[in-house]
C-alpha cells in the first residue's frame, strides 16, 4: 500500500504556493496530511504533484480580537485544543475539536485541511457553517472572502478555484452566547454518523436567534434554516416541540452501514441534545 510516484514541492511562501498550484497539472495540496496521505497510500488519489504547505510562512496561528477569532489554515488541531483562550472565546470549536480523530492525527491535522477535505461528517466544516464563519482564499488574483454558507459546493468539493488555497478562517464572536455540539460515532474518534451543532442567543426566556446545522446527513454539512426560523421568538423551554416537525422532511443519504431512516432519527435526537445544551449555556452566559 504505497503511494503512486509524485513530484514533491515545498514552497516557502504563499505566492509561490499559489503559482505552483496554478501551473502544475494534476497537483494536490498537502496540509496536515491526515486525510490526503491515506488516500495516497491506498492510491485512491494519485496526483502527479504534491504541494506541501507545511513550510509556507504565515499560514499558522490564531489572532483573537474583541469581536473575532481568525485562525490560520495551517494551524494544527492540537494547538487549537491546547489554547485556553480559544476554549474561552470559541467554546463550540473547542468542543468539536475533541471529536476530531485521535491524538496522533490532531498532532498534524490542520483546521484548513479539514475544511478543504470536507468530509460530509467532519466536525470543523460543520461548526464553520453554523458559526457563519468567513473563509479567506488566496489565488493569483489576490485574496477573496467566502462565507461558510457558500464554502461547500458538494461532496468533498470546497469552493476553491484550482489555483487557490485556503489561508484562514474567521469566526465572528458577536452574539454567540450559548453553544451545543453533539455527535454520534460508534467509537471514540470515528467519523460521526450524524453530528449536530447549535448556537443560541436568548432574550430573557425567548430565543432571539438560533443557528443549527447537521453533519453526516448528506454530501455536505447542512444548515437548518427553516428550523432556525421556526425557533425565532420561541419559549426556550419549548424548542423541543419545534425540532421534530422541522426535521421530519429530512431525507439523509444512506451508506452501506447506516440507513436514511436511522440518520433522520439521530439528527432529531442530536439536534435536541445540542439545542438543550446551547440554551442551558445561554442562560448562564453573562448579559
Amino acid at each position, binding site marked *: 500500500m504505497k503511494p503512486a510516484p509524485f513530484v514533491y514541492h*515545498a514552497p516557502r511562501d504563499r505566492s509561490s504556493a499559489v503559482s505552483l498550484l496554478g501551473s502544475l497539472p494534476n497537483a494536490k495540496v498537502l496540509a496536515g496530511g491526515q486525510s490526503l*496521505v491515506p488516500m*495516497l497510500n491506498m492510491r485512491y488519489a494519485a496526483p502527479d504533484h504534491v504541494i506541501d504547505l507545511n513550510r509556507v510562512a504565515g499560514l499558522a496561528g490564531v489572532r483573537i480580537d474583541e469581536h473575532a477569532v481568525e485562525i490560520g489554515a495551517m494551524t494544527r488541531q492540537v494547538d487549537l485544543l491546547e489554547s485556553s483562550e480559544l476554549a474561552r472565546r470559541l467554546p463550540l470549536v473547542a468542543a468539536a475539536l475533541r471529536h476530531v480523530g485521535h491524538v496522533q492525527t490532531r*498532532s*498534524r491535522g490542520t483546521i484548513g485541511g479539514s475544511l478543504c477535505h470536507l468530509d460530509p461528517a467532519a466536525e470543523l466544516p460543520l461548526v464553520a457553517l453554523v458559526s457563519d464563519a468567513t473563509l479567506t482564499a488566496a489565488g493569483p488574483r489576490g485574496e477573496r472572502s467566502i462565507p461558510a454558507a457558500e464554502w461547500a459546493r458538494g461532496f468533498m468539493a470546497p469552493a476553491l478555484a484550482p489555483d487557490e488555497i485556503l489561508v484562514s478562517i474567521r469566526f465572528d464572536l458577536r452574539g454567540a452566547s450559548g453553544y451545543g455540539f453533539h455527535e454520534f460515532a460508534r*467509537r471514540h474518534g470515528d467519523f460521526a454518523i450524524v453530528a449536530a451543532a447549535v448556537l443560541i442567543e436568548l432574550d430573557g426566556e425567548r430565543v432571539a436567534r438560533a443557528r443549527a446545522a447537521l453533519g453526516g446527513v448528506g454530501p455536505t454539512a447542512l444548515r437548518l434554516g427553516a428550523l432556525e426560523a421556526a425557533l425565532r421568538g420561541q419559549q426556550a423551554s419549548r424548542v423541543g416541540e419545534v425540532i421534530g416537525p422541522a426535521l421530519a422532511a429530512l431525507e439523509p443519504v444512506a451508506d452501506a452501514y447506516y440507513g436514511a431512516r436511522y440518520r433522520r432519527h439521530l439528527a432529531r435526537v442530536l439536534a435536541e441534545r445540542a439545542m438543550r445544551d446551547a440554551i442551558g449555556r445561554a442562560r448562564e452566559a453573562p448579559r
Partner: protein
Amino acid sequence: MSDAVRIDLTVNGRAMGGAAEPRTHLADFLRQELRLTGTHLGCEHGVCGACTVIVDGRPVRACLLLAVQAAGCEVTTVEGLAALDGPLGDLQAAFRRRHALQCGFCTPGMLMTLAALAAAQPDADEAEVRAALSGNLCRCTGYAPIIAAALDVLEARRASSAT
C-alpha cells in the same frame, strides 16, 4: 519515477540521514533506510496506530507523514525508550509486569502514544488514558492490561515528583 531526495533528521537524539523518494512515508524511511524496524505498519491508512512515533514532541502516525516532511525534525521511536544495554524504561517495565503485550506488534505504537501522554498530561486519569489509546488498535490483549500499565506509570511518576 520521482527521484530520491536527501533527508537529514534527528532520531533518538542522534543525527541521521538517508535518501528516499518523496512518496516514502516516515515509517518506511525509519524501517528501510535507517533500519530502525521497531516502528511497525499495521494498516498504512492511519487508523491502527502501530506506527506511532514522536515528532518534535508530538505523537504522530508515521504512515501519514512523508519522510521528506520530517527533514530537520526530532524523531523518537521505540528504540529510543531505553538504552540497548540499559534497563527497560518505566513504561516498558510496566507493560512487562502487567502482561500488556502478547504478539508485540502494536506495542511500540502503544508505548510511544503513552510516552507522549505521560509527558503532556502527567495527571491523566483512566478516561484520558483510554481516550489517548483509542488511536491504537490491539487484537491480543483486550487493552485492559495496557490501561493498567499506563495508570501504574502515571501514578508512580506523580509520586516520585511529589517527593
